[in-house]
Every structure is written in C-alpha cells, then in structure tokens.
C-alpha cells in the first residue's frame, strides 16, 4: 500500500492538479507522404489566448476560451462554460520541427510538420545485371 501511495504521484495525470477546469481538446492526426498534420478543436480561443510550444520533442498546445459574459444579460441555460485547453504530444525525430507551421481558423488549430528529408521514403531503383 505504501508503495502504491508513493506511485500515486507518478500515475495521477497532471490535469488533476490544475486550479482551472482543463480540457484535453479533440484532435485529428493525419500523416501524408510528406508531412504530419495535427488538427485540434479549440473553440472560442483566439490568437492572443493560444500558445503552441515546442520544447525538445514535446509539442504542447494550451488555449483559453474567451469569457462569454454579456452585459445586461443573464445566463439562463448552459451546456458549456469557458475552459482551458491543454494537450501535449511527443514528436519523433522523423519530423523537421523547425519547419512547423500553425494556423488557427474557425476554432480549429492546424499544426503541420514536414517529414525530415532523411525520413521521406525513397524508391530505390533495382538494377538488373
């Protein structure tokens, strides 16, 4: 049991220690011949409240949804509330992280990373003798 309690710190996800409500945003990760494209759903996040960080091999996306308060209006029915988004991804050396591109449009963040040249599959011509 003591062992379990000691392990608890390690196994508990970091989200649980946050003071704000933090969501892990939905993502699509798609690989094509030349690049990998990550699309993340960050509703209500604008450029100012968005951080895309690449540290070593870890890409971290954090965003904060704009507060929706309307003056002279009272919230009478609610299915969502402003949250913080955070999610991290490990990116392998197969990708050229220096050429990472990120765009934000209609609440979707798209991050594309081209494959490093050495990782692009090359077709090798076989000579017949």
């Amino acid at each position: 049991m003591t062992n379990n309690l000691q392990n608890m710190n390690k196994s508990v996800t970091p989200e649980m220690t946050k003071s704000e409500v933090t969501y892990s945003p939905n993502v699509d990760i798609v690989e094509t011949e030349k690049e990998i494209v990550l699309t993340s759903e960050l509703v209500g996040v604008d450029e100012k409240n968005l951080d895309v960080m690449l540290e070593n091999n870890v890409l971290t996306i954090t965003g904060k949804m704009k507060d929706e308060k309307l003056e002279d209006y009272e919230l009478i029915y609610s299915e969502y509330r402003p949250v913080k988004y955070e999610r991290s991804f490990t990116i392998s050396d197969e990708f050229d992280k220096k050429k990472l591109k990120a765009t934000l449009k209609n609440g979707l963040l798209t991050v594309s990373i081209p494959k490093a040249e050495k990782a692009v599959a090359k077709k090798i011509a076989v000579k017949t003798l």
Partner: protein
Amino acid sequence: MYLFNKNLPTFFETLERVTREFEDFTNNYSVSETTAPKINLYRGKDGVVLTAKVAGVDPKDLDISIVGQTVTIKGNYKSEIDKEKASFHRKEIKEGNFTRTLELPFKVEVDKVEAEFDSGILKINMPQADSDKPKKIAVKSK
C-alpha cells in the same frame, strides 16, 4: 518475497487505465456531442442571445432559420483532409451534418435577428417581437 507479482499493474494504474478507457468511450459515443452543438442561452430585457460551439464549420455553411418561436441551426462539420492520400493516427473530431432546434418562450422579431461567428462560436441575438411583449394596461377609474 512479494505477495503480488511486481510486474502486475498496481491498483492505481488499473484505475487510471479504466478511467481513461471510459472517457474515450463516452467521448466517442456521446450522441449529443456528435449530432448537436452545445449551446448557452442568455436572457436580456429585449430578448435572448444564443451561443453555440461549432468548431470547424465554415460560417457560409451555417443555416439559421427562425419560424415563430422555433430556432433551427443547421451546419456541416467539414474535413479538409484528403482521405485517400492520408493515414489517420487519431480521429477524434466529429464530421458530418448537424441540426439543433430550440423552442423559445416568445416570438422572435425576425427582421432584427443578428448572427455573428467568431473562432468557432456562433452568437445569435434574437429580440422578442413587439407583438409578443407584455402590454401594460391602464386602468380607468370612475
């Protein structure tokens, strides 16, 4: 000598895994999430403001119709990915058509409705129709 095999997952690891699998399951199969956008409703003195989370929808593809007291929002979550050339590592974002219908407690002044779209949030301002507002009736005394 250990009572349990050290290689077996600990109780906490198992608990975490089960929790994660359950979350994945509910994320993928929750009907409301895939078919209808989540909304908030605000009441002001002249009417209501509805906000809806519609990420990834082109504002041009949004269709808002108001008939009497009923508001309907239709749209399409479009994916720009060429599925033939790409392989998915993860697919969590929903796709397809959605419809959400809402009945308001009053008639809407349709000509004065304003809708805006900003970073995935649709905001519709719907004022109450004058004909539907309560009227103060002056009482004559004799």
